[in-house]
């Protein structure tokens, strides 16, 4: 058991090291230009976000429509503390911790709610945080915060993503992770088995918020400019879409769908304005195809080795 685990971890780290070296070489040789570099980094940030949302939505079965609020908190907290004089790395950590704290504080009362009520409440929190940020003049208000240095490099983004994958994979395959899955499967049964469901829901929320905050910090230092409306509930919806299309309880599917859906608008750029129509159209077609049991996660089957969960229809 332990041996296969170590083997898997080493294989994963080796594979990610190879990917990193290849991309770094391509970037330093200018094969990938600055424009595509930014897109690739955005993909990595979105993967961190999607995986953190995945923990809450797919593994714990709590539909949140406000995950981008934690990204906003992470971004603003990191950028603000950097101004005070903390180095980049500690700013990122600080942003994540503040986001996690908010995740805890928001999760504690709201996670008593279920299903659609939870969805709308989290969406409400997202909106409230956007409005609050718009009204803090120190953060630039609605105009947004400028003058953030471009400290986020490809290495930062990539290794943050790798760390997120490893940590969340561990969480999901731990005692706590199994408790979270049991909450998803049947809350009442889980409670009857002696699992403190609120505890695990809040834990998933806090952990998810932590990584969303990390992604937010990276995003702030990548874009060099943040404004509250970038983090409104449309961003949260994007995350839900990534997560659900990836298939439930599936790391590889989640990563693949996030990558594809982040790149899709760029690929469709040749359509001009119409890409904004084609994207939702594709989304609807994919959902209908899925209902007829043609799944996107099956396309990601080649990557399946890293995610042992496989297809679990049960959630959501």
């Amino acid at each position, binding site marked *: 058991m332990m041996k296969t685990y170590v083997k898997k971890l080493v294989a994963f780290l080796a594979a990610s090291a190879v990917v990193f070296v290849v991309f770094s070489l391509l970037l330093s040789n200018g094969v990938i230009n600055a424009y595509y570099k930014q897109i690739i980094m955005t993909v990595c940030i979105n993967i961190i976000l999607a995986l953190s949302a995945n923990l809450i939505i797919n593994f714990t079965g709590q539909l949140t429509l406000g995950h981008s609020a934690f990204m906003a908190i992470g971004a603003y907290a990191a950028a603000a503390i950097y101004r005070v004089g903390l180095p980049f790395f500690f700013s990122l950590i600080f942003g994540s911790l503040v986001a996690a704290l908010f995740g805890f504080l928001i999760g504690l009362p709201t996670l008593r709610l279920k299903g*659609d009520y939870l969805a709308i409440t989290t969406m409400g929190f997202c909106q409230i945080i956007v409005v609050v940020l718009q009204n803090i003049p120190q953060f630039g208000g609605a105009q947004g915060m400028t003058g953030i240095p471009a400290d986020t490099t490809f290495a930062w983004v990539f290794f943050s993503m790798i760390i997120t994958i490893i940590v969340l994979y561990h969480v999901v395959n731990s005692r706590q992770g199994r408790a979270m899955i049991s909450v998803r499967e049947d809350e*009442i049964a889980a409670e009857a088995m002696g699992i403190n469901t609120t505890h695990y829901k809040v834990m998933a929320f806090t952990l998810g918020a932590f990584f969303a905050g990390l992604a937010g910090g990276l995003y702030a230092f990548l874009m060099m400019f943040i404004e509250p409306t970038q983090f409104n509930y449309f961003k949260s919806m994007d995350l839900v879409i990534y997560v659900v299309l990836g298939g439930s309880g599936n790391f590889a599917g989640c990563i693949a769908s996030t990558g594809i859906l982040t790149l899709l608008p760029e690929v469709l750029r040749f359509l001009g304005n*119409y890409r*904004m129509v084609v994207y939702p159209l594709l989304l609807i077609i994919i959902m209908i195809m899925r209902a007829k049991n043609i799944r996107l996660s099956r396309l990601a089957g080649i990557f399946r080795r890293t995610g042992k969960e496989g297809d679990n229809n049960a959630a959501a």
Partner: protein
Amino acid sequence: MTFVEFLQQLINGLSLGSVYALIALGYTMVYGIIGLINFAHCDIYMVGAYIGFFAATSLHLPFIPTLILAMAGAGIVGVLVERIAYRPLRKASNISLLITAMGVSLLLENGFNCIFGGDPRSYPHNILKQTNIELGPVHTDSLHLIILTTSLVLMVLLQIIIYRTKIGKAMRATSADKDAAALMGINVNATISATFAIGSALAGAAGVLVGILYNSIDPYMGIQPGIKAFTAAVFGGIGLIPGAFLGGLILGVIETFVTAWYSPLAGAIGFIILIIILIIKPSGLLGKKVSEKV
């Protein structure tokens, strides 16, 4: 705030709230019958506003025919959306349906943006004459009163449809238990289509009313009122028609007062109230607590 100002704000709040209520009814009816948060509903409202706009500008129709045309058009769009996008997913998980609804919402917004452009358009001024009305010391204008009256008339009509007609009975039966309703010989698909038609028609009417009141429509006009109307529906207890009505009115009044008092809060106040209500009474104002069965 003097008492007169209070009354004036109350009228403004009630007319805004009645618009929220009109939209919220569609959310709540659809939720009641298929358990879906219909994210595209706020865009049906936008479609209604556009149909009304073209009826008023190209066909030069007066207010009432414009309203009826917009309601019919929005109703048809709502039925088509259900038929094409939602029906194939009837048996899929809730969350797939939710994402499809988000897709339809984006499609309508961006589609209208592509076809008609993103610039705001305004209704012709002569469609409803805006006169000041004095009710004793209270000054208000005719627009707010007309909107309030129109909404109330439509809501009374809805009550009659739901509680006095055969299709209303079918709708109530289907929302109570789809399978049992089908066994009793109710055509569930037709009933769901009817629900979408009625809900969308109400949203279309709201679109025209708001288009005339604020004199500006654009493809993304539905987002903000959509969120607020949905809040209103949850506030009142989602799935309950009187709840949507009450929730809409209360939300409109509170929002108007809070905005008059401290405007930066306008965007968030609805949610703050919602969260407080949900934490105290999670099933909404009129919702009953359903005990869980294992």
